[in-house]
C-alpha cells in the first residue's frame, strides 16, 4: 500500500533519512503525506541552523492542520528545499524525491543506528 524504500532510515515521527557520507537528506514518508492530506505550505529550516535530534526542524501545513517535522539526527542544516516555497505539493506527489525538506551535516552519525529500517517502519505504521 504505502511506498517504503529499502535504502532509507525512518523515525517514529514519520521522517525518512537518506545517508550519503556525513550528509543526511530528510523528508516525510508517503504514509505521513497521505495522513496530512493536501500540503499547502512548507517552511524548511534555514541553512546554518544547528539542530539536535528530536528538535522541531520544519513546519508543514496541509489544508487540514499544521504539523511539526522533527530532525531525526543532530547537525547543521546545509540546505532547505527551496522548491517547496512555490510547490509544497511536491511533498504529496514525490515524498521521497523532489519533496525532500532539508539536508543536514550530521554531528553524531551514530544516531542513525537508532532509526528504523524499512521493515521496522512498516511494522510501526501498521500498528
Amino acid at each position: 500500500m504505502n511506498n517504503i524504500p529499502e535504502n532509507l532510515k525512518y523515525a517514529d515521527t514519520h521522517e525518512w533519512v537518506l545517508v550519503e557520507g556525513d550528509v543526511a537528506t530528510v523528508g516525510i514518508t508517503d504514509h505521513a503525506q497521505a495522513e496530512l492530506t493536501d500540503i499547502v505550505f512548507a517552511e524548511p529550516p534555514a541553512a546554518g541552523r544547528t539542530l539536535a535530534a528530536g528538535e522541531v526542524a520544519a513546519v508543514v501545513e496541509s489544508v487540514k492542520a499544521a504539523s511539526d517535522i522533527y530532525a531525526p539526527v543532530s547537525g547543521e542544516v546545509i540546505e532547505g528545499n527551496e522548491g517547496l516555497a512555490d510547490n509544497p505539493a511536491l511533498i504529496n506527489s514525490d515524498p521521497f524525491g523532489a519533496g525532500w525538506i532539508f539536508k543536514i551535516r550530521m554531528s553524531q552519525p551514530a544516531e542513525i543506528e537508532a532509526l528504523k529500517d524499512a521493515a521496522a517502519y512498516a511494522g510501526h505504521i501498521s500498528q
Partner: protein
Amino acid sequence: MSDLQRTVLFDQHTDAGARMMGFAGWEMPLQYAGTLEEYRAVRGTVGVFDISHMGKFFVGGPAAGSWLDRVLTNRLSTLETGAARYTFLLNEQGGVIDDLYVYRIQPEKFLLIVNAAKTAEDFDWMSARLDPGVEFSNSSAEYSALAVQGPGSPAVFRKCFGRDVPTARNRTLEFERGGEPLWVATTGYTGEVGFEVVFRNADAPSLWRALLTAGCQPCGLGARDLLRLEMAYPLNGADLSPHRTPLEAGLGFFVDLAKEDFVGKAALDRQKAEGVPCHLCALAIQGKSPPVRAHYPVFSGERQIGETTSGGLSPTLGVAIALAYLPTEFAKRETPVEVGIRDRRYPARVTKKPFLTKEP
C-alpha cells in the same frame, strides 16, 4: 468514533474511499479523492456532499408563518410558496443560536434546515415558544439530504430527475420520486450554482448512485469549508456564536427589524441605536504565508484587536484568508492589520466580502 452518528450513506462513503472525521456529533467524510481536487470539481464541474447530518424540521398550519416571524429574525410569513430564505434563531440577548434555511414548500407548510450540532437545541428552544395550532416536528432522523454544487449541477438535475432545476437562487420544488416526496432548493454553501435535495432515508443509496453516475465528484467537509470560506459564508460555532449578534456578523440583511417582535429583537434594536461595537471582517494576507486558522491573533501595531474565527488558504486567490471580529474602527475596507501565525506576524488587509467574486 463509536459514539458518533452515521448517515444512511456511511457505507457508500467508505466504498468511495472517504476518510471520515467527527463533525457535530456525526461521522462524516473529510475527503475522498483529496480536498483540493474536490474543491476544483465544485468550482469547475460538479460535486455532491452528503448533508444528511443537518436537522430537518417541518412547520405546518395556518399560523405557521406568523409563528416563524416571531421566533426567527427574517420575515417568513411573506415568503412565497416555492421560495427559500436564510434566517437566524437568536437568544434573548440577540446572540446567534443557529443560522438556518426556511423553505416554504406549500402555502401552509415550511421545511427548516438547521445545523447538525444545534438540531436538538433549536428544536427544544422553538418548541418552548410554540404557538397554539402550529404543527412542529423534528423529522431529522427520517430524511437524508444531498447538496449538488457546481456549474454542471443543472445538467445533473436533468439527468437524475428528468426536469429542469430553477435557474434563480432560493427557489424550491416539491415532487415525487418513486412515490416518495422530495424537496429541492436552489441553495448551497459554496457560491456555485447548485441545489440541495431532501428526501426519505430509503431513497438515499439510489439517489447517491444516480448523482455519481451523472458525473458528481463526491466531496467532503474539507472542500466544503474552503468553498464556503471563499464566499465568506459563516460557519456556526466558529464565525457565529451565542455571544455575537447577526449585526456584528455583518448579516443584518437577514434580520427584519421592521417586524413587530421576534426573540432577540429588543437587544438588536438597542445595539443598532448604540452602535455595533465590532464587525466580522474578511482578512486577506498580503503575499505568501501559511494558511490562517481559527484563533490566530490579529494585531494593529502592537495591540491585539481580535482573533480569527476561521481561515484557510484560498486555492483560487492563492493567499491565506480569514474571518475575524474586529472593533468597528478597524472594520473599514483596506485597513492594514497583521495576523500572528506561530512566532511571526504577516501583513493583512480588511477586504470585501465575499473574497471570491463569482460570475453571475
